């Protein structure tokens, strides 16, 4: 497997020096995100996130299947992240790297384990038929901070997605095609998003948010915090690396909350714009069965 290219000694030394002087390579502030763009596809459930030069695409699809035998009342929800050589020639198909495994574990914990999606609402006939929702994450371009961009893409795609409408008449289950009845959104409980912090310096005293690829390669440790806009934390992951002062971590958590609120507002705004664009004469509001929360 081709090795990822490492930064030169000159770059390492200069970068640290610049950080100590209070400068980032592209002139951003330490907690400033790059330019973020979120686009939805023409089809439901497609979200395209561009964060600086990092670009990820999430696509949601649904099919009816049998539930797990030990969980007859729950639907199935899976997130797949497979990094391809498009993101970087260092990634090979079918050979998950450590980065890929960590990314998919993080997304699982953030979205699945926090019960953001109500899996019980995916059940059609207990023990026999349930919806299986599948999110595929494609990384189109990798310039650092895949975690945050991927989480936003996955959550945005899930909130954008519409599954086919169904109805039960006695014993018969009818699944309507999009032409027969307008599809319905998923049952969503809360919106978790994650923010990654990278630490630099011998004691991890300098913190950066939204790192580019070069900045990511030079970090000494990092911490990812997932939470929703109400301040409820889903997970905190600091996987090894240089130890960091506890006070810094608490500060990171409050910066994370502020950023998540900004991102949630952006997401809501984009979803509203998208539904306005699709709204055929106000009908969608009547057909919607979404829980107001």
């Amino acid at each position: 497997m081709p090795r990822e290219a490492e930064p030169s000694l000159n770059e390492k030394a200069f970068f640290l020096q610049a950080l100590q002087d209070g400068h980032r390579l592209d002139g951003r502030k330490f907690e400033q995100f790059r330019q973020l763009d979120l686009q939805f596809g023409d089809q439901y459930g497609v979200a395209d996130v561009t964060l600086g030069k990092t670009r990820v695409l999430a696509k949601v699809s649904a099919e009816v299947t049998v539930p797990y035998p030990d969980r007859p009342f729950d639907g199935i929800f899976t997130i797949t992240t497979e990094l391809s050589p498009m993101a970087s020639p260092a990634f090979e198909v079918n050979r998950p790297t450590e980065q890929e495994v960590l990314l998919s574990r993080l997304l699982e914990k953030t979205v699945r384990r926090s019960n953001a999606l109500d899996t019980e609402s995916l059940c059609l006939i207990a023990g026999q038929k349930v919806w299986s929702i599948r999110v595929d994450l494609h990384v189109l371009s990798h310039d650092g901070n895949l975690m945050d961009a991927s989480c936003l893409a996955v959550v945005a795609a899930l909130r954008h997605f519409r599954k086919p409408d169904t109805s039960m008449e006695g014993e018969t289950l009818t699944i309507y095609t999009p032409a027969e009845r307008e599809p319905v959104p998923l049952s969503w409980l809360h919106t978790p998003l994650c923010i990654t912090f990278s630490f630099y310096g011998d004691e991890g005293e300098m913190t950066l948010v939204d790192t580019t690829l070069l900045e990511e390669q030079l970090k000494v440790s990092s911490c990812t915090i997932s939470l929703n806009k109400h301040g409820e934390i889903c997970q905190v992951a600091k996987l090894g690396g240089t130890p960091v002062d506890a006070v810094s971590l608490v500060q990171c958590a409050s910066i994370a909350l502020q950023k998540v609120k900004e991102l949630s507002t952006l997401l809501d705004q984009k979803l509203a714009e998208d539904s306005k664009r699709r709204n055929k004469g106000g009908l969608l509001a009547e057909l919607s069965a979404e829980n107001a929360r």
Partner: protein
Amino acid sequence: MATDSEMVFVLPGDGIDASLIPTHPKRPLRLGPGLRHIPPSTIVPTIAGQLVTDHKKNSLWVEYNGGRYIPAVGDLVIGQVDRSAADFYYVALSDYSSNASLPQLAFEMATKKTRPNLATGALVYARVSLANRHMDPELECVNSSTGKADGLGPLVGGMLYSISLGMARRLLMRKSVEEGRVVVLEELGALGLAFETAVGRNGKMWVNSEDTKTVLIVGRAVKETDEGNLTVDQQKKLVRKLVKEMS
């Protein structure tokens, strides 16, 4: 130097109009990048770009921007030392391409007893001495005929920036301001900033200065010119904006 006044665009496999091929009474026709010669007399483009003619030197080539650097003899490049072996350094010119070899004796004043000491991750400014498709490229840090370094050798300190191949070409032109239309470096110099740069044809630029901020400004100026396709006026505005921001 002379170019056609209107752009002639070619795609791979296109036929070339005979009127565009220059002729010269004494010099043979030289084909540059992007063209293929099929004997006896067919010349076919192999990439998409602009067909450029130089009547003085009697040469023809296709101008383009993009893609990966392919080593060619005589190019000046900035490489990163990957590891050192017995008599060679293995130097990386682009990510994921094969390493080039740099003999440890190919430095000014180097003998078997006094060799340069380059650590892994160090940067060198070198010239390509051997490049063909069957072999890994070879570099040298000394002019083999005169024995002088001419500015080649290890690059200490400073910062490395990645630029597109087209921008590297423009910066390496002898008249980069008039022909390449890159004025940011001149402008920054005129504003009193002191810095030195080295440009590698493999899409790398090294910038050094005593002041960290100066290096950051120079790097950002060139990168934004490259990525934004900025015209001369836009470049001047960018330079003024960056200097104001950083002071």
